């Protein structure tokens, strides 16, 4: 079974600083990590490999420093890692991102399964997975919380809008998994050491030529454009703060406010 796991390096959201006056996002202040949802995708892939044999390729698009996340994936059990890095890939929206990743997957050759996290914590769109499937013209199953690979097909449980659908698909197929699907393992110490030395392949526009049309990557390939960015100053409601007069506060809230709700 050949499995591909696309994953994203994201800033640690608790550490990113926002400068309201200057309107700047200071990403350099924050550490980076693998998007937490993608760890579940990686774990699912490794479990299938352990049970059925095969290999797992982790693939990421981003700046050179995203290599560290791919090494992390290797330490957790991926066999190969590819980083898509090129100035022409920058500024991509979800359509251009999924197109570029789909191109790289085609270059990797035949595969059976692609597993993505359901969404990322920074972009939060949940679109890239289903879009990769469309570019590759293969079916996909989203929000998978349980799965079983049996011979020729995969049976998965997908949860959407308060209903659980048990569905079956032949290969190749793409899944996006939720955090309920498994508990990701931590990388072993020994594996960390080997992963540090392992090779991460770096592919740019040259390596993807024949598999992806450069005019459909990066800013050029993105139909959406960021027109304006503002960092909203926190809305100050100029509320009433009660500190020593709690009884008064309760009276005020219960008597005035609550009866006003009608």
């Amino acid at each position: 079974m050949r499995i591909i796991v696309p994953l994203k390096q994201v800033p640690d959201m608790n550490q990113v600083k926002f400068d309201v006056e200057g309107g700047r996002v200071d990403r350099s202040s924050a550490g980076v990590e693998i998007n937490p949802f993608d760890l579940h995708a990686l774990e699912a892939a490794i479990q299938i490999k352990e049970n059925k044999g095969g290999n797992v390729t982790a693939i990421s698009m981003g700046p050179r420093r995203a290599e560290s996340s791919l090494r992390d994936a290797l330490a957790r059990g991926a066999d190969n890692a590819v980083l898509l890095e090129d100035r022409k890939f920058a500024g991509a929206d979800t359509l251009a991102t999924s197109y570029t990743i789909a191109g790289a997957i085609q270059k990797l050759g035949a595969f059976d399964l692609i597993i993505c996290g359901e969404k990322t914590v920074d972009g939060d769109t949940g679109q890239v997975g289903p879009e990769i499937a469309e570019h590759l013209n293969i079916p996909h199953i989203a929000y998978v919380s349980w799965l079983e690979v049996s011979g020729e097909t995969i049976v998965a449980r997908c949860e959407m809008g308060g209903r659980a659908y048990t569905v079956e698909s032949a290969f190749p197929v793409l899944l996006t998994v939720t955090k309920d699907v498994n508990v990701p393992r931590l990388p072993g110490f020994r594996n960390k050491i080997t992963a540090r030395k392992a090779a991460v392949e770096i592919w740019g526009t040259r390596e993807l030529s024949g598999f992806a049309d450069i005019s459909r990557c990066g800013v050029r390939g993105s139909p959406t454009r960021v027109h304006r960015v503002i960092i909203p100053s926190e809305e100050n409601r100029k509320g009433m703060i009660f500190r020593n007069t709690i009884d008064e506060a309760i009276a005020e809230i219960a008597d005035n406010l609550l009866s006003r709700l009608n």
Partner: protein
Amino acid sequence: MEDRKRVKRPRGVAQLISGKCIACGARCQSSCPKDAIEMNEKGEPIIIIANCIGCRKCLKVCPVDALEIYLTPEEQKILAELAAQKKVAAVEEAPEVIEEEAALLVKLKEYRGVWVFVEQTAGEPAGVSWELLGVGADLARARKEELCSVVIGDHVEHLCQESFVFGASKAYLIDDPVFRRYLTEPYYKAICYLVRKYKPEIMLVGATGLGRDLAGAVATELQTGLTADCTGLAIDDRGFLLQTRPAFGGNIMATILTEGTRPQMATVRPHVMPLPAKDSSRKGKIVREMVPFQEADIAVKVLEVIDERKAGEVDVAAADIIVSGGRGMRAKENFSLLQELADELGGVVGSSRGAVEAGWMPAERQVGQTGKTVRPKLYIACGISGAIQHLVGMQDSDVIVAINIDKNAPIFEVATYGIVGDVLKIVPSLTQRVKELRAKGVEFMVERH
């Protein structure tokens, strides 16, 4: 010959306006056709003047207008002279750019009208669809075009009429057993078929699990732009859809445009837009279409569907009054204090992620970026610090009451009423007071439309 050369309009070179770059991720560099931009380690551009041809592509993609065209004093003089001779306007685009844009405008004009996808499960509509008809009507009015609903399913014709009541004037309907249960492939194929045939300018989809899945597939097939989780939608002076969405957990607001492709697609989360007024007398036109594919071609098969909505399960997003608890509640047992207050008020109990992680509340009660977005009439935050990821999910509530022992807790910055003190003492007193008022005949229950 000499003469002609001198008249050539100088284009200048791009330059960074200091302090404006937000390190958006090298959009300018990616847009440059001449490799004239390098990035420094802060993620800001360095212009290689020798390569720059002044094409302005980088200026256009910059989200914060941090780039400008620099002209030497001599070049400015030439421009001024040319302008005086009326040979060229002072600020003029490169000719190839103008041509590109004109051709594009002709193509875009074919697309008209605002469409809203009506999400349904077993014939039961998702409320977000009707909310989208409300904002859709505003957009349609601004564009002077019609508002249409798209209804796909099995035995779903009644939803067309319901969409008219909420403001649509036309409904595109594909009604067939093949759509009995949701699967991406048949649904996205049906929508792409309708879009290619009728060419809408704008298409709105609810940002539910199903909606995100579907919209992503449709946008990819049609190769058009899709903006997820919009909190604001408006039309700009060129008639384009301004799609505003939070990013970085609500710390920044980005306004996104889809300029070169149609339809302009956006998803919006439930309860972000208000429900429009119902008018039962409204009628509309139903346009019926056939299934545009063979059922045998659908790759994924549904084996079983389990309705997991437990009887009486609480949907915090639909409540008018929410009493939410965080880590400051100290223990699972203390949530009964919140339940008592909520019961008195006719509301429900919500929670921060802190309380979910502590195992005190189930995940479906979580409010915030990775939980539900709520906009109730009243939100009472008890022992919740007010992390930005929590605030983005509740700050549009009409009235916010915050109870926290720490006077510096950020939750107080969005609170209408703040009480600094121990939540375990204050909540029971508040409940008591409400009880007394109710005994006097004051009713707090608020009906939702």
